[in-house]
């Protein structure tokens, strides 16, 4: 187990390739998933420890989003196993994953435009009064507002309708919704896409904070600098499989891009890709 302090200087998880299995809060192996004739996952394996940030990297169509959707219960894999805290689990629905403490920020944000910020945050676990099925809107709005303010990404009033929010505010709400209920695993699919420079920094800071709380974080992003800033380890996806595992502090952008490109016999293209990526 790694203590949070060790992460402060940029990630220092020991580069063990085969740690003890019960170390993992989440362990998925050999996941396959096809959509019609398109094989999105061809035997992907992933393991995540509590209190680490795992960056999942890959080109478009490499299977990153499908992989995390199987972990959050949105998509049922055709084959493969998922262990949560050492126990075999089958997610029949997102509700099942959520009840175990696996929270996800989806790329498309997955908010209900017509509901208020507070109602979005509490959707599925509404606050009610006196145990009756009676919404406590005031308490939800107040609590949501305070929570968003504590997160400090962007200021958002709790009773505003999401339709009237800016892209950055929506992103903040989506992130808040995922971290609000003490997750054990937090999955972030492009959480910084709609944000400005300052807000991105706030989200990355938030990732460090939840990691310090012992949460296992999976981060998908196109921004290479985010990976180096917060990730302890990287999992590189290529054509539906996990092609490589890297420890962030021991790797280089060059090596990452090399694996994103498929990882073999592409010496010339490697040089070109690095130029365009950096």
């Amino acid at each position: 187990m790694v203590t949070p302090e060790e992460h402060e200087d940029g990630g220092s998880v020991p580069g063990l390739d085969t740690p003890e299995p019960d170390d993992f809060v989440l362990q998925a192996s050999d996941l396959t998933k096809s959509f019609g004739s398109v094989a999105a996952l061809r035997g992907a394996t992933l393991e995540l420890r509590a209190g680490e940030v795992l960056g999942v990297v890959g080109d478009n169509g490499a299977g990153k989003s499908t992989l995390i959707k199987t972990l959050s219960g949105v998509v049922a894999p055709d084959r493969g196993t998922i262990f949560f805290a050492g126990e075999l689990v089958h997610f029949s629905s997102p509700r099942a994953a959520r009840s175990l403490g696996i929270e996800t920020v989806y790329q498309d944000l997955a908010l209900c435009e017509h509901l208020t910020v507070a109602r979005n945050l509490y959707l599925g676990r509404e606050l009610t009064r006196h145990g009756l099925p009676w919404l406590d809107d005031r308490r939800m709005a107040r609590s949501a507002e305070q929570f968003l303010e504590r997160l400090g990404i962007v200021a958002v009033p709790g009773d505003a309708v999401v339709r009237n929010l800016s892209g950055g505010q929506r992103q903040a709400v989506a992130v808040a919704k995922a971290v609000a209920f003490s997750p054990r695993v937090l999955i972030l699919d492009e959480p910084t896409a709609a944000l400005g420079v300052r807000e991105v920094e706030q989200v990355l800071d938030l990732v460090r904070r939840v990691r310090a709380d012992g949460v296992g974080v999976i981060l998908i992003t196109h921004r290479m600098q985010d990976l180096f800033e917060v990730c302890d380890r990287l999992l590189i996806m290529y054509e539906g499989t996990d092609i490589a595992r890297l420890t962030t502090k021991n790797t280089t952008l060059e090596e990452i891009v090399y694996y994103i490109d498929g990882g073999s016999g592409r010496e010339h293209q490697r040089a070109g890709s690095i130029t365009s990526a950096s």
Partner: protein
Amino acid sequence: MARELTHGASADSVGTRPRVAAQPFLRRNVPILALIGLLVVSGVYFSLASDTFLTLGNFLNIVRQSAPALILAVSMTMVMTTRGIDLSVGSLTAMVGGVGAVLMRDGWSVWAAIVVMCAIGVVAGSVNGFFVAYQGIPAFIVTLAGFTAFRGIALILTEGFSIPMRDERFVWLGQGTIRNVPVPVVIALVFGIIGWLVFNKTPFGMRLVAVGSNPEATRRSGVNTAALLLRVYVISGLAAAVAAIVIAARLGAGSSNAGLGLELEVITGVVLGGTSLFGGIGTMTGSLLGVFLIAMIANGLILLRLDPFYVPVVQGRFSWARCGCTPMWRVSATLRRDSF
């Protein structure tokens, strides 16, 4: 099961309120205000043109006549907010009324018949709901099938005749009064109030809006959306059964012609009220006012001795007039969004 947000505990941490105006009351309620405007304008016109229009008796008369539509407007608002529609409710009232009449003719007690009538509504609603929620068939198609089939069953049961229902206790539900207020009005009022509360103040109502707004996001939030949709069609079926009881009791007969076109009257009223056909936006108050407006126009025109054949034409004009208001608030909504 609900918990407080864990990271947002301390009460005094709120400093300045973040910007993004909560929408002002006027703007938020443009659809309903437009509707109230139409109600007032036409109400004033009818009051001036007819001596009898603006009396309590006439008001109760309008509500009594539109009670079945008001009851169905409650459930239709819920259905349409989830992006659905229920075209089968008109035919279902005929089927439920027919079954009730046949049962009572065959010597069943009033209460047993009423229970069976409600049960039929629930079963019919669950059939609709099953296909919509669990088979993913568009609600329009599913309930169009019910629209045809249910009236067919009503015809078979009644053989096309109007079957009399003479039991006084049953007839009271349609013709009686409680302290001078017609019973159908009381039933519609109770239905409306409960519907408003459920829609606006319960997790169920909130999830209806959520699923109409973004079904996939709602599912990912851990809501069992299929069960939610099933329930909303069951409510619709039950509301149709209640409407059927009111209609049959008012006519004192069960007829396969009951509720002809009722579903369209209800949908018109609900849309007039500001509920979106595309889901996510629903207003219980608007629906009830919309249905009331349509009934009021018919009533006023009849008092003015207009040829009844013209009444639907005028009602249609009102729908257009109300539609004319839609672009106005769309524009204002766009302006608001762009100002951020």
